[in-house]
């Protein structure tokens, strides 16, 4: 993971999470909105840019592309994407566990 790729932006974090199972663009936006109680609403430009960048990094791939039945394009996370997500999760866990020091200080 290069320096530029970490830490993940909130948008990247939640898009990866929403793609743990096959999902399409609108589905990703909806799920992220629900998970964050409407705090993170992804704009089309932000979503498209993130999907392109993460495909270039092989973090996600196209899952289905059934043009015949006009089915929406779905994406899914790759193994490399899961590694990136886990790395970010460890970083966040470190932050959270260190944050507990603040409570000890008060006690």
């Amino acid at each position, binding site marked *: 993971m290069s320096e530029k790729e970490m830490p993940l*932006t909130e948008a990247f974090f939640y898009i990866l999470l929403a793609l743990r199972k096959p999902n399409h*663009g*609108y589905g990703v936006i909806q799920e992220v909105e629900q998970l964050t109680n409407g705090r993170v609403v992804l704009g*089309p*430009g932000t979503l*498209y840019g993130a*999907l392109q960048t993460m495909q270039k990094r092989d973090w996600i791939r196209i899952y289905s592309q059934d043009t015949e039945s006009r089915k929406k394009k779905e994406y899914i996370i790759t193994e490399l994407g899961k590694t990136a997500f886990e790395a970010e999760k460890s970083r966040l866990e470190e932050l959270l566990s260190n944050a507990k020091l603040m409570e000890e200080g008060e006690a």
Partner: protein
Amino acid sequence: MIRFKLYYDKDKETVWLNKMASEGWALKNYFAGFYKFEPCEKGEYIYQIDLGDTLYSVSDEYRELMGELDVEIVVLWGYWIILRKRAADGPFELYTDVDSEIEHYRKIRRMFKGAAIIELLALFMELFGGLTGNDFGWVFALLIGIFVIVCVNAVFRTNEVIARLEEQKSGIEAEKKGGNTLALIITAIGLLTNSCMLLVEESISPIISYPVHIFAIIMMAVGIVLTVKKEN
């Protein structure tokens, strides 16, 4: 209804298109500064402008995603993409976090930089044409010169937008960059001196013109070196 306007600032253009839509005029088509509007219900649409990766086209993936999100691609012009969404379908912002917004403006800056360089090359060709007796060369040189100034101005403006967003992201106030402006002024002086000398070369003695030419070349070189240093 057709309106003629020349915009190089997509943010101002977006504001204008949305103002027109709020007054009941929806943009339907665009050609070289001519905006064609159709009547719509007041505030029926929200317009946004994006910058694509290819000229006059978008990828299938882009088209499909926009379609899925009820966003209509209204105009493809150069790298610009004018989009709209029905206001009834909810708010419409293309970029919703500061990182993707910065990336968007960086792309815009790259585009204007590229255009400025190409136009600068064209400017020299037209100046050469003018010098070799083609009067059209002067007219085109003037037009292209204006375009170069517009592009350089757009790069500066986009720089300011990016700096503001970077500040917003990091919470650290950016240091004011003086070096780049200096480099640009030095380069500009060099270019101007050189052009003036080319104009009057015939009528003055080489004893004057050669040193001035050398001065101009040194100025241009210094300007370029300073710019490259700053970029690194």
